[in-house]
């Protein structure tokens, strides 16, 4: 009560203005949070089932309820999925696929971003003759379904001698990343004030000096976004991986499919679940570490056409 009277005598400006504070538990809020909660549970449930199953023994899986937590936790399925499960003739588990995926993803991400950032820079800053035509063709490329190009690319890779090895797959990923990444970088560089570019030219900087000394340091956020986009996309790729490589070079996604879909012997649900979770670790980690940055970058790229 004492507080109330002091407030009445000397109302502070903070209390005198501004919108009415909202109650945390209004009817509306309760509605919103219940719906969000239900949806979250719905989407998390499969993940929960996978995690629980991967920690159970086969016997328990056969007898038990899929939602029940394991009575006896075992990491055996995880170890087997990683190191010893067989796909075809190879029995060294998902680890082979993991390292293949690393060998595919790292150079693909590097090369696609390196080329696309220079593309975007040249398209937005230098506006050479035919720049618009070039850009239009590139964007049309983004709308053509991949499946249309599968066979021509097989022929192309065979002719240049890259079919079946990692180099060929890296090339394919680099080329297919081009339209969307170029768009991303072009839009970002378009938002850089033109006068900055002009000032650099008056200061005697040429194409590469401006790119490395002026534009690159300013574009770090969009590079992070591009790395996230490309890493998740290439890591999760299945189609190109299965078509353009040989079994010893299969990426993790293809190997996972081969493990899960193998029809001989007993279905080892716990190993399958562990293998699936292992395959998802990299993209999941990236999303968790960079969620905010990811959304911001996508939004930044989308504002300007």
């Amino acid at each position, binding site marked *: 009560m004492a507080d109330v009277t002091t407030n009445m005598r000397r109302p502070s400006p903070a209390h005198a203005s501004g919108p009415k504070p909202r109650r945390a538990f209004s009817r509306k809020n309760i509605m919103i949070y219940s719906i969000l909660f239900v949806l979250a549970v719905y989407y998390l449930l499969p993940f929960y089932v996978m995690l629980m199953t991967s920690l159970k023994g086969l016997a328990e899986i056969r007898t038990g309820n899929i939602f029940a937590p394991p009575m006896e936790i075992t990491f055996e399925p995880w170890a087997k999925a990683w190191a010893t499960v067989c796909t075809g003739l190879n029995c060294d588990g998902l680890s082979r696929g993991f390292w293949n995926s690393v060998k595919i993803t790292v150079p693909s991400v590097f090369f696609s971003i390196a080329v696309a950032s220079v593309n975007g820079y040249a398209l937005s800053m230098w506006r050479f003759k035919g720049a618009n035509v070039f850009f239009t063709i590139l964007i049309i490329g983004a709308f053509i379904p991949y499946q249309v190009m599968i066979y021509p690319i097989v022929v192309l890779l065979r002719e240049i001698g890259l079919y079946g090895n990692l180099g060929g797959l890296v090339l394919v990923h680099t080329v297919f990343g081009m339209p969307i990444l170029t768009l991303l970088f072009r839009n970002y560089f378009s938002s850089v*004030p033109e*006068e*900055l570019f*002009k*000032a*650099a*030219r*008056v*200061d*005697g*900087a040429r194409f590469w*000096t401006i790119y490395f*000394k*002026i534009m690159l*340091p*300013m574009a770090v956020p969009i590079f992070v976004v591009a790395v996230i986009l490309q890493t998740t996309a290439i890591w999760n790729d299945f189609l190109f991986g299965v078509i353009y490589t040989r079994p010893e070079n299969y990426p993790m996604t293809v190997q996972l499919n081969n493990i899960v879909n193998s029809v001989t012997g007993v279905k080892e649900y716990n190993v399958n679940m562990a293998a699936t979770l292992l395959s998802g670790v990299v993209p999941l980690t990236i999303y968790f570490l960079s969620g905010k940055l990811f959304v911001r970058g996508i939004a930044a790229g989308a504002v300007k056409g």
Partner: protein
Amino acid sequence: MQPSVSIQNLKLDFGSVSVLRDLNLDIGQGEFLVLLGSSGCGKSTLLNCIAGLLEPTEGSIHINGNNVTWSEPSDRGIGMVFQSYALYPQMTVEGNLSFGLKNARMPKDEIKTRVARAAEVLQIEPLLKRKPAALSGGQRQRVAIGRALVRDVDVFLFDEPLSNLDAKLRADLRVEIKRLHQTLENTMIYVTHDQVEAMTLADRIAIMKGGVVMQLDTPDVIYNKPANKYVADFIGSPSMNFFDTVLTTADGPQVSIAGKDVSLAGYDFTRPGVSGDVWFGIRPEHILTGEMAGAAPTQFEVRAELAEPMGAETLVWSSLDGTALRFRVDGQMKITPGDALLIGFDPARASIFDKVEELRI
């Protein structure tokens, strides 16, 4: 003496839009030339052509006698200052100043000396280690000027350098640019849409419209003897009052305003003997009131319609024979709408333009 910058028959088209049309301009050594015009008149485009940031469609540009029409911006001996400062955000002030010198592969000692000297001239020594984000607008523009200064160029180009600053800072920096010009004695080409900047800074002003130079002359001539109605209207704030009238020469040159014959015996004719329909223009500040009006050769009685007090003076809106009329009175004089006022002016201070081409008579 050969001109510092010489522009010959310069044309520039953006697609089907022609931005600069057959433009010729000679700028003397050490001259301060202001390109003045409203938005879209081609003044910034012209500056960008001189800088080498835009390629002209036709014509040539010479700087100190060398044809630089197709040279790189950095090879032209020009430095440029931009409206948005255009400082490299990731570099310190020192980095910004030395960037151009590093690109020119200048020895490190020389770079240090030059940066130190420029910082001293512009009084930005304490800021050298800071990034642009940590500077105020005025400081940023000083650094931008410094970037042109260190390169020891022949010609300075300014593209509306003060437009992003507040009024007070603008006035300060304007004086500083003028002082800089007096110290360095470089050729300076300065683009602006602010006539105060143009009048105060320029040795000569080029007034542009639609990609053409309407008049190129000293501020004094531009103000007192505008070559055409556009220039007369553009320069001066508030702008000139124009009467639609007829010039007769039968009994000596005279015009008729609000039923009164106004003799033009004292008027300095550019084209004597011309008669016909004309615009008779008189600047608001050349219209006298009170006792001064009583002594003026031509006098009228008008009613005040609106008063805008501005402190030192009051701007009065009125009309004479259906033509809107603006004039200034002393700020101490209290004007209320409806007041009758005696005004007068000396026709010798007027500007007369024919109605066909709107050129000065």
